[in-house]
């Protein structure tokens, strides 16, 4: 059952991702990207990473892609629908990328080889707090617990990075005003 679901969702994800890349219509591309995101979320569910799956739908399919569609519609980018393969560079890039993919798949699966399977890490004890620590489960609580104890530093660094990006966006998108102009 799980295998079958995996193949279905993997197929949906890959096919919609492919259409997104090759479709000349921009809105088609955006819609296929949404389907691809939702398919990825379904794959996360099959991995029992429910929190990640929900965030994938909430943030990417729900919020980011609405912005994409908003911009596409506002600028009416549909007008300059281009041909599938624009020039030789695109063609060369596609062929090189596909060749790399073939090499990767061959190296990973052909001739009795297979991808190395990482061993599951043992559940870490709570390093800082008191108490026995909580066991690793798929629940959001366990996720948040390890995020705020063991992975506190990467978490805060990511937050700082996002803050820097946000400030950058505000600075870049702000209209340049004369120093004498009124402050807004």
């Amino acid at each position, binding site marked *: 059952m799980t295998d079958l679901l995996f193949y279905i969702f993997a197929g949906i994800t890959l096919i919609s991702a492919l259409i997104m890349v090759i479709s000349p219509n921009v809105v088609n591309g955006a819609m296929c990207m949404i389907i691809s995101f939702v398919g990825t979320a379904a794959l996360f569910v099959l991995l029992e990473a429910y929190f990640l799956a929900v965030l994938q739908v909430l943030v990417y399919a*729900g919020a980011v892609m609405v912005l994409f569609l908003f911009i596409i519609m506002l600028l009416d980018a549909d007008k300059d629908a281009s041909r599938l393969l624009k020039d030789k560079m695109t063609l060369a890039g596609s062929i090189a990328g596909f060749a790399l993919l073939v090499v990767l798949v061959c190296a990973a699966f052909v001739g009795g080889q297979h991808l190395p399977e990482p061993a599951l890490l043992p559940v870490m004890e709570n390093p800082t707090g008191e108490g026995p620590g909580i066991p690793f489960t798929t629940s959001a609580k366990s996720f948040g617990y390890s995020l705020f104890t063991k992975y506190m530093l990467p978490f805060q660094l990511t937050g700082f990075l996002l803050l820097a990006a946000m400030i950058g966006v505000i600075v870049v998108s702000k209209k340049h005003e004369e120093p004498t102009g009124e402050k807004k």
Partner: protein
Amino acid sequence: MELLNTSLPYLLPIVYAVAMISVFMGLCAYSVLAERKVSGWIQGRVGPNRTRLPLLGHIPILGNLMTGLGLFQPAADGLKFLFKEEITPGHVRKSYYYLAPIVALAPALTTMVVVPFGRYVDADGVMQPLVLANVDLGMLIVLAISSLGVYGIVLAGWASNSKYPFLGGIRASAQMISFELSMGLALLPVFMWAAAPGSEYGMSLFGVVQSQQSAWLGLWQPLSALIFLVALFAETNRLPFDMAESETDLVGGFHTEYGAFKFGLFFVAEYAHIIIGSAVFVLLFAGGWNFLPWLADPWGDGLIGALLSVGWFMAKVFFMIFFFIWMRWTLPRFRYDQVMSLGWKILLPVAVGNLVLNTFIIAIYDTLTR
């Protein structure tokens, strides 16, 4: 018999899901009737009172009563949508034009999977929710799936390929993004209180209801409740925030070019969103199926208790649906720029302030009671 036993675990969820969809669609149809009746009452009219089914409508006293209440009207409305001529304007983008009503309705029907609507006491004496899927992340799933609902409106506006629907679609996408932020931020204090350290529930809606056994969250988190309610009105595209539809300046908004059953699907989707929104609001802020504040659960065990809890929950949801309708026929529509400045300049800062305030209160409370 052997086959039945093996297939039952797969069959039963399907049966439950079909049953729930049937009840839910019935609720949608009767919310439309409620809208028409309540609007008639508010405006001093009678509302629909003529539709009469052949057999049922001729039961002596009951028939007249049901006709007068308009109980047969949803059937007539549905048949009207079905048998009208399906007009597809020549200038639309066909595939997305057909896809949009489906995309509008499907998320509204999907969210109800994680919305609990009652409780029962199982064989071990443990209280369990009546819900299709009792998942740990209930609230997040509701937010995630319902955020996909906007694509129905956006696609309808874009695929119609004419000016008014397009403006409606653009407005809908901007409005959704703005109010989703305040909605999420208003929810955070709720879960900070409800899922305190030591409680066994994460972001499940059942856990929130269980945490409201004494005081309902709406009573001591009124600010969160208010922000959530305002954002809910905006997210469900109801007046005073129905910018995507706004018939005074956009004809019919995003569904101007739609007719017959495709329009009917948009119509049902709007009421489906209202019902789910009302249910989530009741679960989060109005105690779910808990009887009254500080009088949590007089329902008792067994089947009767379970049914009573469902009934009480539905009563609250019906009141919230009435509230939605009431607001629509009471408040005038905001101007578009007023909606956006309300979302970004008032609701969002207040929601952030509310979150910080609650964080401090929890920190002080924890320090004092340690």
